[in-house]
């Protein structure tokens, strides 16, 4: 039985290679190749255009078959059907699911070309079992992005610790008509909760020779959950679904004063609430122990080469240029990325369009990036995200006791790991 299955898989694989060949299109007889690149990131097409101009032999076709969260489904199904692209953008949280699915090319042999362009902790996020499976593109060190105009109006300043953060939230609730909130804590932002737990020292996934283990219902996570449970139960944060009409209305009318967002936040805020230009500023996120700052990331992504690609060398060449080379890093800065490459973090850059007078925004982001804690994501991060969304939603509605939230998530994630 097992042998037949393997033979079947092998046959599928062969078919897959054939199909990819057709789909990718090998270019003309002049020896040029065309690479397919799936990426949702904004403005990356501008960088691709620059590359295509300079490299007529290696043409890159960029397309966005899905946005960030839906990308793994699309990439995994396409790769399994043998119809995957040559390269794809992947959030750091999504990398393990690709690696365990076995659809990625091992980049370790070519790593000399790009490894020294990244700090060790950044490189660690794309390294699995000592093999490198991606080239980091951008980082999302968390920042406390807040309405400085409203903060000034209410005489508030950003909190250094989580205790101060709670006091700040109380002050905001007590102000005005009582319809303002410091922050919206959405059940949909599971990655934020995961980051908050990480900041407190939780490590949800781990692996050894026997495979994966999961430790979500830990003391560290419970402490963080208790803090936010208090915030929710005492009505100190709103719990609108992110990007629901309620949320958008509250953001637009200044009833939500801040976000715990990735460094990329000014971009989306700018396109969604253009009327708030100049009203925002960035600050470091609150800490449990301000003398030992720990920062988590929201989002951030790497680019991967798929194992089925017929032109892995050219793909690696392109991605090295795009993400690791000094020219590439400068280009990414130009299109508003907070680069994973160290060079891009160190160069002078102008303030984000959303906050034209905040020249300190990017330096603050770099400082936060220096305190990023290493995260081990699991092969089923998406399962955890969905489970957290469900459990928080049910807890908000009183359908699930708060004490059951972490055990429930742990149960769902470990059941899924065991199959």
């Amino acid at each position, binding site marked *: *039985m*097992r042998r037949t*299955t393997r033979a079947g*898989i092998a046959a599928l694989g062969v078919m897959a290679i054939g199909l990819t060949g057709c789909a990718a299109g090998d270019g003309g007889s002049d020896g040029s190749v065309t690479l397919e690149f799936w990426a949702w990131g904004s403005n990356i097409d501008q960088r691709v255009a620059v590359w295509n101009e300079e490299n007529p032999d290696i043409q890159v076709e960029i397309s966005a078959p899905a946005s960030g969260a*839906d990308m*793994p*489904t699309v990439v*995994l199904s396409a790769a399994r059907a043998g119809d995957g692209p040559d390269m794809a953008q992947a959030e750091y949280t999504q990398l393990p*699911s690709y*690696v*365990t*699915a*076995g659809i990625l090319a091992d980049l370790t042999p070519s790593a000399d070309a790009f490894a020294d362009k990244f700090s060790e902790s950044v490189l660690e996020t794309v390294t*699995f*079992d000592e*093999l490198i499976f991606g080239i980091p593109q951008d980082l999302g060190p968390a920042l406390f992005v807040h309405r400085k105009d409203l903060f000034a109006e209410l005489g508030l300043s950003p909190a250094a610790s989580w205790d101060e953060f709670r006091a700040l939230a109380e002050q905001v609730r007590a102000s005005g008509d009582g319809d303002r909130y410091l922050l919206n804590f959405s*059940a949909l932002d599971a990655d934020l909760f995961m980051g908050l737990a990480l900041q407190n020292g939780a490590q949800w996934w781990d*692996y*050894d*020779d*026997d*495979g*994966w283990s999961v430790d979500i219902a830990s003391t560290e996570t419970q402490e963080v959950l208790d803090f936010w449970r208090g915030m929710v139960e005492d009505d100190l944060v709103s*719990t609108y*679904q992110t*990007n*629901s*009409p*309620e949320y958008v*209305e*509250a953001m637009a009318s200044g009833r939500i004063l801040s976000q715990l967002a990735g460094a990329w936040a000014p971009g989306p805020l700018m396109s969604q609430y253009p009327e708030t230009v100049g009203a925002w500023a960035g600050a470091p996120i609150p800490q449990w122990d301000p003398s030992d700052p720990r920062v988590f990331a929201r989002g951030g992504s790497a680019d991967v080469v798929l194992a089925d690609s017929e032109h892995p060398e050219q793909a690696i060449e392109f991605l090295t240029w795009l993400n690791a080379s000094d020219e590439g890093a400068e280009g990414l800065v130009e299109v508003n990325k907070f680069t994973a490459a160290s060079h891009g973090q160190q160069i002078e850059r102008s303030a984000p369009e959303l906050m034209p007078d905040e020249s300190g925004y990017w330096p603050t982001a770099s400082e936060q990036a220096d305190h990023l804690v290493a995260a081990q994501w699991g*092969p*089923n991060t*998406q*399962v955890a*995200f*969905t489970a957290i*969304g*469900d459990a*928080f*939603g*049910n807890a*908000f*509605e*009183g359908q699930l006791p708060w004490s059951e939230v972490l055990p429930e998530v742990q149960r769902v994630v470990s059941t*899924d790991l065991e*199959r």
Partner: protein
Amino acid sequence: MSSALRERAPATHDRGAGRADRLGGARRRRMPRHAGFAYLLLAPALILFSIAFLIPIGYSIGLSFMGSRSTGSAFAPPETVFVQLDNYAGVLADPTFWSSLGRLGVFAIVMVPLMMGTAILLALLLDLPRVRARAFSRTAIFLPYAVPSVIAALMWGFLYVPQISPVYQFASGLGIELPALLTGGFVQVAIVNVVLWGGIGFNTIIIYTALQSLPKEQIDAARIDGCDELRIARFVKLPHVVPATLLTGLFSVIGALQIYSEPQMLSTLTTSIDSTFFPLMRVYRDAFAHDDLNAASAASILLALATVLLSLLVLGLRTVLARRTR
């Protein structure tokens, strides 16, 4: 006489049998040619039916008996193996499967009677003599059916959110505090409302059309016998639309079992609808969030079987009712 009969009877029998034989023989001889031609004509439909229906179902059934099992180390690709009924057992053992079925049951029990009742009422009203603006009303009632359910859910969703809804703003202007429909148990009301809004038009038109086939004489006879409109509706029109109502009722039941896009759409607005709220949402979660097509297939097949059973039940009910009216 009787002896003559006795004599003739076998002969008749023989002749009949002989004819049957001849006919049978002819049919047998002709069959291949006819059958071949028939299959040729059927081929396009059969091929499409296989591609669009049989093969996917077969593939799903196949998937539901397979599973991916990790091969030990953390980053080794998992292996696809035959797991017998494990996926089915997993689905049946999962409490969220049963709770989603429970919510579906509540939804269907509330939605279907409301849908059929309102549709019958509207059809009877449309069928009243001397009704004004009949064509306009018919179009107005039918129009929501033309709105895709995703759009309908989005539209109603905006009306449900107190902060931005003109309905809530109007009500609070009058000093009325409407319940927030997207919280707690009210969320079922919110979903039922969207489905009713989109479905009543279709059902009304079907029943109204059935009413048109009622002979005028029958209604006239009832009127001469002294029936007012209410009695005509109760004793002449209602019995006449029972078969049509059962048919549309069956569609409604099947539609209820397949409820997906409305709650999925509304779930982006509220925390009251989680990813396993209704069975099909749970299937979607398994297939796409959990990347577990095997469990998703098993749950789908269980749902399909339940749908077939329920349909047979409704059709059986129809036959029984039809017999009783006869």
